[in-house]
């Protein structure tokens, strides 16, 4: 006969050991509280809105989280996203070649990520400083590439609907629903990255490179190579975010995505990823993005504070979530 405590042991182990336990609990609490107290929160319109708002940040967060687990930062993702957006935009709308557009939109940010990775691993300049400077440099490159002009088209191509079109069959079921294909892309990427992270050797190496690079190196892990690959993946994801962005809004600007890097880091932290590297989860990061998005929607919906000041509330809650996560982890 097992005691209640014994029966609860797996749950307790999950709570203290799984990196996604903290964010999952936070998400559940916020969701239940908002559903109970915030008018119009538990509606298909609000839920689909929360998901949509999380898509661009979420895509970037996937790459950022992987990189953070490997022990590095990337502050230069926003101009990469803009660059991806511009290349995809001009490729589809001007050059008329969809494959080329997609290829370049992923490849150029990948090269930018490669540069970040090489500088960080070869010079040992902290990635915080390296990518802070490439943030400005890449913004300058976007600026030159765009000629200082916003790019916008009023044409609609099929490819735009594939990447970020309306899911009509879902939306027809509920009034006010606005589910989009981009959500499926993000979901697919999260599962893919999560699988790579926990089920492959490369994933192991990522944890090792971030957790204890010295020991990892001693075990034969090529720490430098792992980190460079993570930087490249971070760039690719940023470029992909640019593709998703342009597919719906058919507009890309030099400042597109400004501030996205910090939101992504915040989301990763809320989602249980350690700032010091070596620990974290892609799914947790997605939950982090969802928590922040949910908070924003909840705050706007309550109409209690001036609508132009909701970011402050979101900020306070990010800190709260981070504290909660580390408290849970301290119980381990």
């Amino acid at each position, binding site marked *: 006969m097992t005691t209640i405590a014994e029966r609860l042991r797996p749950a307790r182990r999950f709570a203290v050991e799984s990196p996604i336990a903290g964010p999952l609990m936070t998400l559940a609490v916020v969701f239940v509280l908002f559903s109970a107290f915030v008018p119009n929160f538990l509606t298909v319109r609000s839920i689909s809105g929360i998901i949509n708002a999380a898509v661009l940040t979420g895509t970037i967060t996937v790459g950022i989280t992987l990189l953070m687990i490997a022990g590095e930062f990337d502050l230069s993702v926003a101009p990469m996203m803009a660059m991806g957006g511009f290349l995809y935009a001009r490729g589809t709308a001007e050059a008329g070649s969809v494959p080329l557009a997609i290829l370049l939109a992923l490849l150029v940010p990948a090269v930018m990520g490669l540069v970040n990775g090489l500088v960080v691993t070869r010079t040992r300049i902290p990635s915080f400083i390296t990518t802070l400077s490439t943030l400005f440099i890449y913004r300058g490159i976007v600026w030159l590439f765009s000629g200082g002009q916003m790019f916008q088209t009023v044409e609609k191509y099929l490819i735009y609907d594939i990447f970020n079109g309306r899911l009509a069959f879902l939306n027809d079921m509920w009034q006010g629903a606005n589910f989009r294909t981009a959500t499926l892309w993000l979901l697919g990427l999260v599962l893919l990255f999560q699988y790579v992270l926990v089920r492959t050797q490369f994933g192991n190496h990522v944890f090792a490179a971030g957790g204890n690079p010295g020991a990892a190196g001693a075990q034969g892990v090529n720490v430098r190579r792992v980190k460079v690959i993570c930087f490249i993946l971070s760039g690719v994801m940023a470029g992909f975010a640019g593709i998703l962005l342009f597919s719906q809004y058919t507009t890309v600007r030099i400042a597109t995505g400004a501030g996205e890097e910090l939101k992504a880091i915040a989301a990763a932290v809320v989602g249980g990823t350690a700032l010091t590297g070596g620990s974290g989860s892609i799914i947790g990061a997605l939950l982090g993005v969802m928590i922040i998005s949910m908070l924003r929607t909840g705050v706007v919906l309550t109409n209690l504070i*001036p*609508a*132009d000041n909701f970011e402050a509330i979101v900020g306070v809650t990010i800190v709260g979530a981070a504290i909660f996560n580390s408290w849970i982890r301290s119980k381990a």
Partner: protein
Amino acid sequence: MSQKVLSILVLLSILFVAACGPTPEPQTIVQTVEVEKTVVETVEVEKEVTVVETVEVEKEVEVIKEVPVEVIVRETGPDSVLDLIFVQHALCAWDSFWCTVENGIRSAADDMNVNATILGPDSFDLERVAVLIDQAVAAQPDGIALTVTDPDLFREPIQRALDAGIPVVAYNAGSGPIEDDIAYLTYLGQDEYQGGYLGGLRLAADGGTAGVCINQQVGHTGLDKRCQGFVDALAESDIPAEVLGISDDPAESQTVISDYYTANPDTDIFLTLGPNGANPFYAFMEAEGLDAGDITHGTFDISPEIADRIRAGTTMFGIDQQPFLQGYGAVQMLTMVLRYGILPALPVTGTGPGFVTAENVDFEVDADRPVDAIMVQHALCAWDAFWCVVQKGIEVAATEMGVNATVLGPDAFDLERVAVLIDQAVAAQPDGIGVTVTDADLFREPIESALDAGIPVVGYNAGAGPIEDGIDYMTYIGQDEYAGGYLGGLRLAADGGNRGVCINQQVGHTGLDRRCNGFVDALEEQGIPAEVLGISDDPAESQTVISDYYTANPDTDIFLTLGPNGANPFYAFMDAEGLGAGDIRHGTFDLSPEINEKIKDGTTMFGIDQQPFLQGYNAVMFLMLKHRYGISPALPVTPTGPGFVDLSNVEVVERLAGEYR
């Protein structure tokens, strides 16, 4: 009986008119136009214009009203030679004040290659002016400028011009389209409040203990506004100020001033509102034994006595309404509208206050004086397409006015380099410098070195005006952000509404915040609650925020976005929500292909343009006016926007996009 005779006369004259040519009415009209034009252009002919008030003419006017207007309104564009008619309540022929106005009209017509015809009565007679407006409309010109001396009397004739699709601006007399309640484009004249305010700032610049505004006609709206501005300016420097009423009797007025001074011996700042106030004031000074060192004095207007006192240093300045600029500016405004679809930014366009000081009181006008201008800007057409439009404005103005203008800029965004370029411009000793005041702190020294060298400087496109920037350049030529939000708000709320929201993509950005403030103020004046909603650079997130706000405030029906960055997620929100043009009203700042489409399909009421062409054009124009005519821009900020682009002009704007727009 007499009615019968009249109707026979009418019939006969219609027959007569019809007999003039085989083609129907439009032809005859064109002929009358020709006649009037040749008639009116010299002064002697003015009398013949008044002769026009015979029965036949009245009937011609009648006939013309039956002609479908659209057939006759001509398409105009950048290269059109324009026919403009000016209708004013007085003429140079019998009131010398108007010679300056007419000189302004002629100089501008000459510079801008337009045909200007000036109409006016041969004595002060407003009924006749109203008739002349109708005649001007009948002549089907490209544009009309007029003095709105009596809005009630002129409302109908002006409305007929507007109905005929003829753009109208007012000059010298009027209060602007809103106060006059006539939908003409703008009124060019003195801004009385700003005259008092800016005068007050000058008088209080070196401090003081107490100020007084000597008003010869308390209750006169224009004069009261001058005093109000003066009192407000002094209050900002913590100097108490009040208004002293005097009368038309100079002896009595002198005593009143003297008594006031006895009662308030610490008064050391005096403003008089014209020669009628200045004259007894000077008598008071003499009697009291006061001179320049004891007090500071400024006045409105210029008279020989005031000019002498300015030279002697007793009087700091005389405020001029700059009638030349009223004429010149009226031509320029209409030309901008007709050639480029560029609209005046504000209901009132200040031509004064223009300050006449010891430095410029003896300025000699020379319309042929060569002008070398150097324009220093932080970006160039070569690498930023926005600037091609600004530079086109510079180029067009320079060609039209015979100005030698050089544009300088860095190879890439580099403000340090721009500062160096300003220094180089100063070293070249031009007659004027235009600068984008992108960084007031960084550019302060170079700009001040230009001013010290006696070179006039205007700011364009970037800046906040001489007062806010703390640099004493002439004016900043650019968008008035607050007015953009305010006037946009008035348009959006014109048919009422429940709730408004200003969607701001960068809360904390001064310019954007001002737009929202203007919008909120305009709506609240109409009793409609309004607030600001902050969004971000992430359009997906922004769309959800807008959607959530709308869910929480479903009665919101007025939306203002501050540019394509806000409009873009807003349209996505409308799309997702299934909202259409009939459900809500939307206006935005700026234009983009998407916004243009939405204006055309009626979703968006307007896009507000800062009209960069006008920034370049006006910068050159003001440097030229300063150098040749001694005329200064009236206000610290000379707005080029808001320029509203709506269904009526979006196609013109699109056609000229990239070059003039």
